[in-house]
């Protein structure tokens, strides 16, 4: 179909690069494809020339028909006409061949660079860009960008074709050319007007499609509820409304889209009839040959199709450039975590010291930690407790070197954290995130992610250490069970067990554990707690604690409020003190206690009455 239907979804966007920067970036990516691009340009030029030559040649032959035609003439004519057709095809084939290679290579390079760039970013980058957006930049935008470069080249070739043709036509007859050109504003005007209407219908149609999707998604997800309450009829009626509305809107859209080509054809028909008549008059008074007359009529068809393409060019061009800018913005985002040295620590005791540390997620935002001091002894299990936003997670993320801090020092075994080689440092660091993350592979592979050199036997041994290994037998194929996309095949509890095994295999000197809050069935919960004990043994551990049993077992509890350590000690002592910890206990941990479990059902309402 015509280009007239393309790029209807273009939107205005903010430029963040000026033209020169952008052209430079684009050129850099296409430079390795330099020869292919030159080749493509040449064949585009040639195929334009030959496409123009064919009707011109035929028109000349028609003029020569008055003479007697010899066999030799016939052969020549046939060879030339056929050759023109074949050459046009060959040039087009070469163009497509090379341009798909060029586009393929450029897109590949862009994707590789973009992927490398995002891997090198610290976590503040991932806070600003949601993962869906990063994915679409790497995959879709890179393609859209490369495509637009090709679009520009094609458009240029079509413009060239028009210019060549018009130039020649002017030489033949100025009057006839002007008649032909008179049609151009009409065609472009119609095309632009159509696009304006089409844009609205496209928007409406997209909106209604989203509505249909939402309705279906909601009712299908909630079908169990609808069935339980036997509300199918009500839902069906609602669906009918949405579906009928969708029909009406899409019908209107279809009418608009189907209308454009017949209307353009009618316009072209007016032009053809005008050329036949006025050209005919010129032939009659001898100022035009029959062949030229034929050429003008044929030329019109060559002429009006590219014109409709010009109407859509600008919005497509914008879409492509916007895509390009989005990819470049991804490449140019700077990593804020900067290492000043590359000390490789072979072994680590696991001592961590915060000295007068200042930290905020963004320079402009409020500081999370101010003049923060803390020493964590080797082998100690430290529990961090506090309300949301008190700085617990920030402390662990700073130790993992996921974020840059503004002032002060973090010392690992006495070395400035900035002076360490990041890869070797992180090899000594185990991290268990709050939501366990599994890759699409077997459970075995997921555990081995912690230490790629581990043998099957080692993996199995480590897995058995977690929760007595009972959980492995409940997996359908043991350690060879597929975890599924993001571990979907496993229950939340099983995923946590896998992650614990992973970190146990890695055997790090420092462990950072952000305890999961998801509730797990009591049997699996028991396994996890047994597994945790195993993991926390004999290494420095910093735990953002959500389980009562974990804080009870911790060597030291640090109580945080607004980035400050306000209390520290063990569970009993802190509880007795009746300070902030006691408040936190009553807010977050009380319901996990044995006393809570033993409250008799009747007492629930007695105590409620008592407090009321």
């Amino acid at each position, binding site marked *: *179909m015509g280009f007239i239907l393309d790029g209807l979804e273009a939107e205005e966007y903010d430029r963040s690069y000026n033209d020169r920067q952008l052209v430079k970036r684009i050129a850099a990516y296409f430079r390795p494809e330099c020869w292919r691009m030159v080749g493509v340009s040449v064949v585009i030029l040639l195929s334009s020339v030959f496409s123009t030559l064919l009707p011109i040649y035929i028109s000349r032959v028609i003029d020569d*028909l008055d003479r007697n*035609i010899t066999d030799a003439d016939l052969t020549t004519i046939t060879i030339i*006409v056929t050759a023109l057709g*074949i050459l046009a095809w060959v040039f087009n084939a070469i*163009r*497509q061949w090379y341009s798909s*290679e060029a586009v*393929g290579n450029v*897109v590949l390079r862009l994707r590789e660079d973009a*992927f490398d760039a995002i*891997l090198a970013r610290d976590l503040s980058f991932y806070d600003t860009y949601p*993962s869906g957006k990063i994915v679409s930049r790497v995959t879709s935008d890179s393609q859209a960008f490369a495509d637009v470069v090709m679009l520009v080249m094609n458009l240029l070739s079509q413009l060239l074709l028009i210019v060549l043709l018009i130039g020649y036509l002017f030489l033949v007859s100025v009057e006839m050319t002007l008649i032909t050109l008179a049609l151009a504003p009409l065609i472009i005007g119609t095309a632009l007007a159509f696009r304006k209407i089409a844009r609205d219908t496209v928007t409406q149609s997209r909106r209604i499609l989203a509505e249909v999707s939402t309705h*279906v*998604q*909601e009712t299908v*997800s*909630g*079908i169990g509820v609808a*069935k*339980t*309450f*036997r509300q199918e009829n009500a839902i*069906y009626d609602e669906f*009918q409304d949405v579906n009928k509305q*969708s*029909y009406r809107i*899409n*019908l209107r859209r*279809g009418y608009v889209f*189907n*209308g454009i080509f017949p209307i353009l054809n*009618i316009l072209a*028909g*007016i032009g*053809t009839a005008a050329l036949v008549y006025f050209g005919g*008059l010129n032939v*009659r008074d001898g100022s035009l040959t*029959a062949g030229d007359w034929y050429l003008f009529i044929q030329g019109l068809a060559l002429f009006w199709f590219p014109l409709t393409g010009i109407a859509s060019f600008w919005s497509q061009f914008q879409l492509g450039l916007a895509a390009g800018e989005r990819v470049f913005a991804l490449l140019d985002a700077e990593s804020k975590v900067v290492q000043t040295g590359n000390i490789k620590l072979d072994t680590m005791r696991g001592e961590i010291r915060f000295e007068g540390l200042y930290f905020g997620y963004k320079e402009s935002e409020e500081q999370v930690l101010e003049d923060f001091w803390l020493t964590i002894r080797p082998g100690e299990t430290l529990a961090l407790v506090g309300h949301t936003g008190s700085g617990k997670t920030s402390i662990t993320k700073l130790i*993992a070197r*996921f974020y840059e801090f503004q002032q002060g020092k973090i010392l690992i075994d006495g070395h400035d954290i900035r002076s360490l080689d990041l890869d070797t440092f*992180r090899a000594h660091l185990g991290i268990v995130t709050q939501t366990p993350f599994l*890759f699409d592979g077997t459970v075995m592979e997921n555990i081995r992610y912690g230490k790629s050199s581990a043998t099957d036997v080692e993996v199995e041994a480590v897995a058995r250490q977690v929760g007595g290994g009972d959980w492995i037998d*409940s997996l359908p194929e043991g350690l060879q069970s597929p975890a599924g*996309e*993001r571990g979907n095949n496993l229950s*939340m509890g099983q995923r946590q067990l896998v992650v614990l095994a992973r970190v146990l295999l890695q055997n790090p000197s420092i462990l950072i554990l952000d305890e999961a*809050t998801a*509730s797990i*069935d*009591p*049997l*699996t*919960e*028991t396994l996890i*707690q047994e597994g945790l004990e195993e993991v926390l043994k004999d290494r420095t551990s910093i735990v953002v604690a959500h389980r009562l049993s974990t804080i009870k077992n911790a060597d030291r509890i640090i109580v945080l409020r607004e980035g400050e350590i306000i209390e520290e000690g063990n569970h009993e002592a802190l509880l007795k003190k009746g300070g902030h910890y006691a408040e936190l206990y009553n807010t977050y941990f009380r319901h996990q206690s*044995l006393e*809570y479990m033993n*409250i008799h059902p009747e007492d*629930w309402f007695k105590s409620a009455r008592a407090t009321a």
Partner: protein
Amino acid sequence: MQSKSEFTVQNAYPYNQASPLRWIVSHIWRYKALFLSTPFFYIFSHLMYAGAPVLIGRAADILIDGGTQKALLWASLGILAMLVADGISNLTGALCMENLAQKVERDAREELYTSLLGKSQVFHDRQRVGDIMARTTDDVRQLNVMISPGIFFIYETVMGFVIPITFMVGIKWQLLLVPGIFVLTYILSVREYVGRLNPVISRQHDEFGTMNAGLEESISGIVTVKASTQEAFERGKFRANAHKFRNSYVQQGRIEAGYLPMLLYGVAVGLTFLHALILYRQGSLEIGSIIAVMGLINVLRWPTFVSLFSLSLLQNGLASGRRILEIIKAETDLDENAGGHTSEVQGAIVFEDVNFAFGDNTVLQNISFSIQPGETVAIVGQTGGGKTTLTQLVNRTYDVTNGRILIDGVDVRDWNLTALRSQISKIEQDVFLFSRTIAENIAFGNPEATQEQIEQAAREAQAHDFIMSFTEGYQTKVGERGVTLSGGQRQRIALARAFLSNPRILILDDSTSAIDSATEDEIQKAIRRAQEGRTTLLITHRLSQIRWANHILVLDKGQLVASGSHEELLRTSMHYRRIFARYDMALPPLENLAQAV
């Protein structure tokens, strides 16, 4: 025909569901007047469109033979009239087609949706929501596109070939030679081309999906990647995927570059010209006719180009039809059982040797127990142990494979489905709320409930206070454009829903977690209140709920490994003891190990 359904619509139009093709045809045939009238517009349109070059040839003859200006004017007006008539009839035809296409899309979606409402829960559990969404939106859309412009393109191709060639034959029958051969070779080469291109396209499609999924995974797991210093591994994986995609992208470009039909067309133009010239030299063709013939061969360019799309559109349409029909025809296991047992439920539940399997996968084995009206039963076991399935058998979300389940002494399969389900309330693990107001959500099963009744139910579910904390109170919209509720809040709204419908049996899949003790207090109270006076089946992670249940069932891999009260199980079940061993509590001595498995 569908054998069973939980939902049917009166006077539904009967479509032929024997095969995808017949199904699509029967949808189109419903509007046969529309479908049958369109070809006439197309034939007329092409007669006019191909007639124009013939008339141009006539005009040339007029010029060469020195005809009058008036004759020329008439010829020009004739051309104009023909091209305008072409435009108008083409437009009319296209609009008819479009109308038909949109109607088919609407009807197909409605048919699919109706069948979805009628499917059992077994079906919906097996089907991913995303999959169903794709079928009700993309696939249904594909049917639309298959008709307009798919069938439209086919008309264009057929008539775009047949009519101009007929006209050429009309000028001189010998002229059939070159276009005739062209059409034959054209058909062969298109078939070959499509056969080569399609596998590459679908491979490329898959590779794009793999690349995307891999990328998504690396990004979502970035903390794990960085923490395990596996950047190099991830980079290698992505590069390999990106390379594969690049290769098939280039391969597709190469195949497309070699699109033979356009070459054949170029050759056909040359040979037709040669043929016309030979005929001219023999004196059997006028110059005007040569111009006409060259004009007609030009008309063939568009169908040569467009036929490619029509084929794939048709193929895609059929494939989509197959996918939609697959869902429509999927057997559903339950029916409404309108004539079944109807009475007020008392709440006694008995499982007798119940077995259940999804296909070959056994989920429950030999489960037997009985519950008195008003009792609370807690079901304990690991995820995947069959707890949820067990409760789903009670309200006939699924039917047992073997054995039977009795409610008040009557087999659940003999109950009227509406009577049964309306007296059993089920609160799922993921409480589903519709994107409506909170009041509407609470009153979902009882649309006629008054505001007072709704509020009363919310109070009993300990939900009133948090609902009133929203600025719009009960009129607050839930979901996408409204307020997001926490798991605990959703659960209490579902409990309010249950209080309002006042069921005799309550099934509560309670796996929400409250991070703070105050919320936990509220939930505890709400659940306690809900248990009062009704039989309750409770799947819970809350030890306090388990501890105080009348009866506890311990499930392990689909088998009932222990049952009894808290005190009994502490004495008899290893599984159960292990849970409490971590608390600083005095455990009674273990007795009767044989029973504990």
